[in-house]
């Protein structure tokens, strides 16, 4: 039976572990920062001198760390895109907006071990020559913001922050900024606009790639809370060691939020890819409720495409001879990692598993998700603005007994006109993927619902039979 592997949440839930700096220091806190600041410049054979920041960046690249916020993009690569020649200041922003439905991992860190994140952030800032950084925390986390501000004050008092940090000559200031209460504030360019005091309208890319034209039109790094914590551990144990955790190209650990129809919903930290979806449901989250059968799983936060129970995928694997071999895997046997879920047509996204058992009304479930997206679309670009509400209205109608048998196709046609680069930001995908996958994979249920409603209306009944 697979075990949790607690790296980031190592101490968080230990009895007596408190979020104050003394507790953190007793547990080896800020040692990685001391180590980072003490790294000596290295002279390469060709005479080139590599400073501590660049060495850390190289180590993060070596670690294979991928972003934990949603897209799973290589952290080292992201940092390498930063325009370091513009002469403009470089900013770093910690994305603590955690608002993807089903996701509740960042808040564990923020509430229980804020210094770990702050340490990871200071190291990341040092590695990227950042002098001013922000923590953008969602508006609905007032307690988190309070804890963070207290922690920052503590860190300042100990000179982990501020001028000439620990005598290294490095200066850094970090501010907490509370979000305005919108899901779109978590999208990195929407976040940047919001941080600038504007409406969180995501920016067009090109030209506004954060690494070049980010906050105040300066090069900017946006990283998720968990990603920044991982940086602390990379410096602590070394990138090569970190890369041994998890599986190739899917290194380190991930905190998976499991919710829905399971006995023990919660967050479970695993080595990436070392547990399957089935194990997460059954071994970690205690399995389904008595007498229930699995119906569907959303593997990476509400935006990820749904998996249907029993769904099989053909995955490519490297055989012992190095050649690719194709293997059929059941959905439950998919290793929980970035690449396998992507190969299965979905994604690990924000690391949130949402479990639905056979008591789920799939139309109502999708109507619920769609309503969220219709409510949260920023409304800037046409396909998402109009499409998200259109889908939501159609689903609301279906969920209230006014379905038509053509509604399944109707929904798919709407959803197909939104994603694939037609919109400014990935919210376009986020709002259409659930519809495409729910309706696509449970089409018979959507059609049956429509037919039943039509038959009932034809018979003159006004009351929907199923709601």
């Amino acid at each position, binding site marked *: 039976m697979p075990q949790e592997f607690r790296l980031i949440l190592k101490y968080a839930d230990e009895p007596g572990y408190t979020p104050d700096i003394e507790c953190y220091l007793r547990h080896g806190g800020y040692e990685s920062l001391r180590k980072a600041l003490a790294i000596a410049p290295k002279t390469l054979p060709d005479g080139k001198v590599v400073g501590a920041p660049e060495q850390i960046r190289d180590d993060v690249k070596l670690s294979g760390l991928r972003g934990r916020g949603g897209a799973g993009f290589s952290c080292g690569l992201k940092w390498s895109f930063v325009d370091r020649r513009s002469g403009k200041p470089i900013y770093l922003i910690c994305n603590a907006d955690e608002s993807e439905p089903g996701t509740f991992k960042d808040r564990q860190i923020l509430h229980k071990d804020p210094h770990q994140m702050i340490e990871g952030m200071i190291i990341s800032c040092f590695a990227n020559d950042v002098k001013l950084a922000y923590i953008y925390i969602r508006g609905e986390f007032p307690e988190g913001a309070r804890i963070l501000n207290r922690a920052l004050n503590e860190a300042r008092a100990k000179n982990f922050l501020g001028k000439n940090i620990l005598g290294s000559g490095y200066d850094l200031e970090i501010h907490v900024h509370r979000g305005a209460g919108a899901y779109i504030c978590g999208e990195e360019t929407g976040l940047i606009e919001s941080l600038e005091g504007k409406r969180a309208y995501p920016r067009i890319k090109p*030209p506004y790639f954060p690494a070049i034209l980010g906050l105040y039109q300066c090069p900017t790094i946006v990283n998720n809370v968990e990603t920044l914590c991982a940086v602390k551990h990379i410096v602590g144990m070394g990138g090569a060691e970190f890369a041994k955790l998890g599986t190739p190209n899917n290194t380190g650990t991930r905190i998976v939020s499991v919710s829905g129809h399971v006995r023990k919903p919660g967050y479970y930290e695993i080595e990436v890819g070392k547990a399957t979806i089935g194990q997460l449901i059954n071994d970690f989250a205690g399995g389904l409720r008595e007498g229930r059968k699995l119906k569907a799983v959303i593997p990476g936060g509400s935006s990820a495409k749904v998996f249907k129970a029993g769904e099989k995928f053909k995955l490519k694997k490297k055989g012992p001879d190095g050649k690719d071999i194709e293997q059929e895997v059941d959905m439950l046997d998919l290793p929980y990692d970035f690449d396998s879920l992507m190969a299965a047509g979905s994604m690990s996204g924000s690391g949130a598993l949402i479990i639905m058992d056979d008591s789920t009304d799939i139309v109502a479930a999708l109507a619920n998700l769609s309503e969220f997206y*219709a409510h949260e679309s920023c409304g800037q*670009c046409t396909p998402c603005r109009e499409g998200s509400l259109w889908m939501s209205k159609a689903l609301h*109608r279906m969920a209230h007994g006014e379905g038509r048998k053509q509604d399944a196709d109707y929904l798919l046609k709407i959803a197909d*006109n939104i994603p694939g*680069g*037609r*919109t*400014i930001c990935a919210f376009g995908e986020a709002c259409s993927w659930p519809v495409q996958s729910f309706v696509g994979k449970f089409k018979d249920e959507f059609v049956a619902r429509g037919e039943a409603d039509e038959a009932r209306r034809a018979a003159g009944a006004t009351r929907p039979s199923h709601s």
Partner: protein
Amino acid sequence: MSAPVATEPKPAPPAVETLKVKVDGLEIAVPKTMPDPLTGKPVPTTMIQACTLARTDVPHYCYHPKLPVAGNCRMCLVEFGTPAMGPDRKPVLNPDGTPKIAKSPRPAIACATPISPGMEIYTTTPGVKAMREGVLEFLLINHPLDCPICDQAGECKLQEYSVDYGQATSRFVEPKVHKPKQVDLGPRIVLDDERCILCTRCIRFTKDIAGDDALGIVNRGSYNTLSAYPGKAFDNNYTLNTVDLCPVGALTSKDFRFQMRVWFLKETKSVCTSCATGCNIVIGAREEKVYRYEPRENDAVNSSWMCDSGRLNYKWIGAENRLTEIRRQNPGAGGEKITWTTAAKEIADRLLAAKPGTVAIVASARQTNEELFLLSQLAKKLNALTDSVPRIQIGDKLLLSADRNPNSNGAKLTGIAPAQLGSNLRKIAEGIGKGTIKTLLVFGEDVTRHGIGADLLAKLDTLVASEILPNQTTKLAHYVLPGCAHAEKRGTFTNGKGRVQKFMKAVEPRGDARPEGEFLHELVAAVNGNPGFTSIEGLFNWMAREIPAFNGLTWGGLGDTGVTIVLPS
């Protein structure tokens, strides 16, 4: 006399690097960079600019060449490819030696995506058509589709593109989103939020061009609603430009809405006369009535904008009390209607009889170069003291000039006005007072409001007043000549920066009114013995030969957007 050459003050064009792209198979070389609409700094050329250069239309709503790019409507989505690169970072070639093109799996918005060497842009593929259809469908589902009562009908991009790219039937069966209608956005603008497609053109213009952060969007998603800042009126002096920019009928001008269907309007190229900037305009008229002014693009003058005060300053043209008769008056004791021929003869006789130095002329810096030139010819012959009336108020940084005369420079260049406009007015008043000035010709001004009161006018042997609307001076004049609004004639002005610009006739003069230049030309002919008026072209070209600063100009050479001359310092 050495002739100062009339030329555009052009900086030597910097060598612009070009790169080659293909638009729907047509290869063209386009500049690598183009000026940013706000800063003028070179920025990478975008796909839509390349398509424009290749004469390929890419439908668009939010994009406007004079505004910062927003990229929100998604109407301009295109497909594209770039030369494929091998692992050696060298282009991969097809068997025939041409570079292999790797088609991008994702589309791009043409309005914001920079071009790159060898890029191929596809604007007519089935994929592109499907995306456009999709965007249009989304734009239309919540649109009220009330074209029959919409003031934008005929100028609406939603209507236009729906015909070109849309589908006839809608599958939308849900209730539409309802939003505020007939919102009183400001003193001159009404907003219909249901028609708004949220392209943010009006917001960007107001913030980035007019410098007023007055407009924004409230609410979220499909409920997004354009709004003025709560509690604040949208009332800067440039609000009506947003009506021009609005691609649909969401923003309407209180002044123009429901006055006239746009397709009935005859459009005439003209120039605004309300300040020295001389914004280029189009006059919309029907059946000899002016209905609106709209800005006309001229990057040397007004870009694509004009101010509200200038735009709305046209009603006087259609005023009920316009002067329409040529009259000989016995001030205080009535008068009678006469003909132009009689007036010309009698006035010429009086001028010829006048002793040199006893005639003065007060012209208007609202008159055309040609009219002022003719008056200067008279002045020369009669050794007359001349001037015009200054109009200095507060200007702004965008367009509005502190000088509210459209042609102060014309008045100065023709010698009618001294360097300091109005500085001769007192001398004229004194001359009349002392009895040395016995004849006064007044064109387009009420001199009683500028230091030459009724008591002084009463002392004159001859007072000729050419005017458009009655005033104190016309009341006291011996001869009243009905004048023309600029919309009723052709001519040129010289704006504050020395741009000589012509305007064309939009409507017929009222009653017996006649372009002042024609009458003056005949008067000059009678007094000087020159040939009389034949054509505006001939008159302009004559003036251009005589006035050094205008040397080298021709009526035809002015084109639609004028020519900048070097103003004598």
